[in-house]
């Protein structure tokens, strides 16, 4: 475990963020069967460390663009849970007034101009935000979150080229969880890895352990520092694994989608437990500290879900509002 050497407050901030995502996603798993969240959910359980490691290094004004699997990124970026929960419940008080659902989380005030469910779509949009930041010279940077599947889309290549050409303040963050829906990596790509693509554009690129929060924090920090100081884009490939099925709260190995022992190996490398163990091992915090954080988070999540369920439905008469 590459455990980060950081002040206690920062270590706890990371723990809190990691746990917030974990508990929020678990709450969805718990409640999804009630069929009140009438929107497909793509959970990031097992992948939380990437979101936290990257977003904890960003300023609130920095931009992230996410995908269908966006909960973790948005939570780590600071988006209030109420806005997310209410959107999942299709309410007017949701971040998109119920128009977007789970796949289109948005929070401009937290640097989230939106999320797209079209694979690969987030990448050029983030490049555009980076261009915008560069033109406005406002010191912001942009992050494109995307999956291994998205790295096969032409938009990835087109964005790498453009970002390299203009030395954009942009971080390409690929969460390689080795599957796109149920298609394994090797059915879709030769075994060269995704980071290998960056070299063709002269973009600093690394492959790193996405389940080790310390590693993500460090690698992302270096890339962000480079971007912010005019050093141009970086490509970060984080290897990780999703615990649940592609969509919905269930596991998928029983259905034959993936081998069970593969999942088990990755469960042993749970990013949350690894970080928690490291934290306790560092001697800087006690179990009680962490339990207190968790308790607070559970209240925060209770509040978000209560808020969502108590919120009004959008008025069908407003159906045609916000089209243009």
């Amino acid at each position, binding site marked *: 475990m590459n455990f980060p050497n950081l002040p206690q407050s920062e270590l706890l901030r990371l723990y809190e963020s990691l746990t917030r995502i974990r508990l929020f996603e678990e709450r969805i798993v718990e409640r999804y069967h009630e069929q009140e*969240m*009438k*929107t*497909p959910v793509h959970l990031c359980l097992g992948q939380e460390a990437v979101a936290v490691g990257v977003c904890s290094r960003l300023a609130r004004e920095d931009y992230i663009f996410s995908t269908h699997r966006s909960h973790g990124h948005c939570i780590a970026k600071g988006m209030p849970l109420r806005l997310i929960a209410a*959107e999942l419940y*299709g*309410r007017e008080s*949701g971040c*998109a007034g*119920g*128009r*977007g*659902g*789970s*796949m*289109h989380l948005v929070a401009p005030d937290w640097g989230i101009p939106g999320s*797209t*469910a*079209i*694979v*690969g779509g987030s990448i050029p949009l983030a490049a555009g935000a980076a261009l915008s930041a560069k033109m406005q010279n406002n010191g912001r940077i942009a992050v494109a979150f995307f999956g291994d*599947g*998205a790295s*096969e*889309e*032409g938009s990835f290549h087109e964005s790498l080229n453009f970002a390299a050409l203009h030395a954009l303040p942009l971080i390409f963050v690929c969460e390689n969880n080795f599957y*796109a*829906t*149920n*298609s394994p990596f090797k*059915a*879709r*790509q030769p075994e060269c890895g995704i980071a290998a693509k960056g070299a063709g554009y002269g973009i600093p690129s690394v492959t790193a352990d996405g389940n080790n929060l310390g590693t993500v924090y460090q690698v992302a920090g270096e890339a962000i520092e480079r971007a912010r100081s005019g050093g141009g884009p970086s490509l970060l490939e984080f290897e990780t694994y999703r615990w649940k099925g592609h969509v919905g709260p269930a596991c998928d190995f029983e*259905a*034959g*989608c993936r081998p069970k022992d593969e999942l088990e190996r990755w469960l042993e490398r749970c990013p949350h437990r690894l970080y928690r163990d490291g934290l306790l091992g560092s001697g800087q915090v006690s179990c009680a500290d962490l339990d207190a954080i968790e308790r607070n988070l559970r209240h925060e999540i209770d509040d978000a879900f209560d808020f969502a369920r108590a919120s009004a*439905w*959008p008025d*069908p008469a407003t*159906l*045609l509002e916000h*089209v243009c």
Partner: protein
Amino acid sequence: MPWTEIQADSGRGRANFEPLQGCVRELSYRDAIREALDQALTRDPRVFLIGEGIDDPGGVFGSTKGLAELHGRERVMDMPLAENGLTGVAAGAAMTGMRPVLIHMRTDFLPMSMDQIVNHVAKWSYMTGGSVKVPLTIRAITGRGWGSAAQHSQSLQALFAHVPGLHVVMPATPHDAKGLLLGAIAGSTPTLVLEHRWLYDRTGPVPEEPYLIGAGSGVVRRGGADVTLVGVSYMVGELMLAAGELARTGISAEVIDLRSVSPLDEELIAASVRKTGRLLVADTGWKRCGISAEVAAVVAERAFDALRAPVRRICIADCPTPASHVLEQACYPDVDGIVAAVRGML
């Protein structure tokens, strides 16, 4: 050429919602598609299937389930997430002796490949003076509901019907799902087969032997005298329900299932409206420059003097699809809306 042995079925005028003569076997729309693919793969070595995850346990909502095991993963191929490139790959294979069936889980992914579809596939035969054909079939599925929202629920047939050089078919019954798909695979014209997810569980009579339905012929699903209801895909069933409802108050509606939006069976539509004097068109897609516009325009050209009421168009609302259930319900047309619209025409 195995296809030449199969009798093409124009099907015009037969009400396929009634049991087919002599056909007792019922199949779901899903299984009808699967059977068509299985038969095509079995009979013609040039046929192969390609699509994201088509060989996985789900098998594209069941429509390709088990086919990889039966025919091998070289002929039932998974593919990278690269829709435009892979459309080009499939097209290149089609130009050089193969008959690929490219499969998309959602119609929404077709805009990714518009360049290859619109600029290449649709134009290749013409640009080469007919010397190189592109016998490519593209299947794509439109869904509805459960908060899938703007990027996972589109019904984009009009974008393709607009472009010469393509056929676009939209089966509403299991029988047509099998026949239109086999017709597309057997033909030499690039064809989009647009399916509707909400029809997948519907069952109906489907002959076991392969049969081909060519693009371009609609069918009258129900005869009537007072109003012509024209629809495609999922909306045909809604029109049938509406027609039943209207019959209870003495209104006799004729229901036409277009089956094919390009070519369009103009004569079938015009003849019906010349008889009934009224037209309502129901589409799964948007109104502006949509299928409903084309049908209305054809009637304004060919049967304007028969019209005794304003044409009505029943389409999805003029907005991207919202996620929230309450907005979804307001967005999609329903039977009540159709019935009310017809009453307003009389």
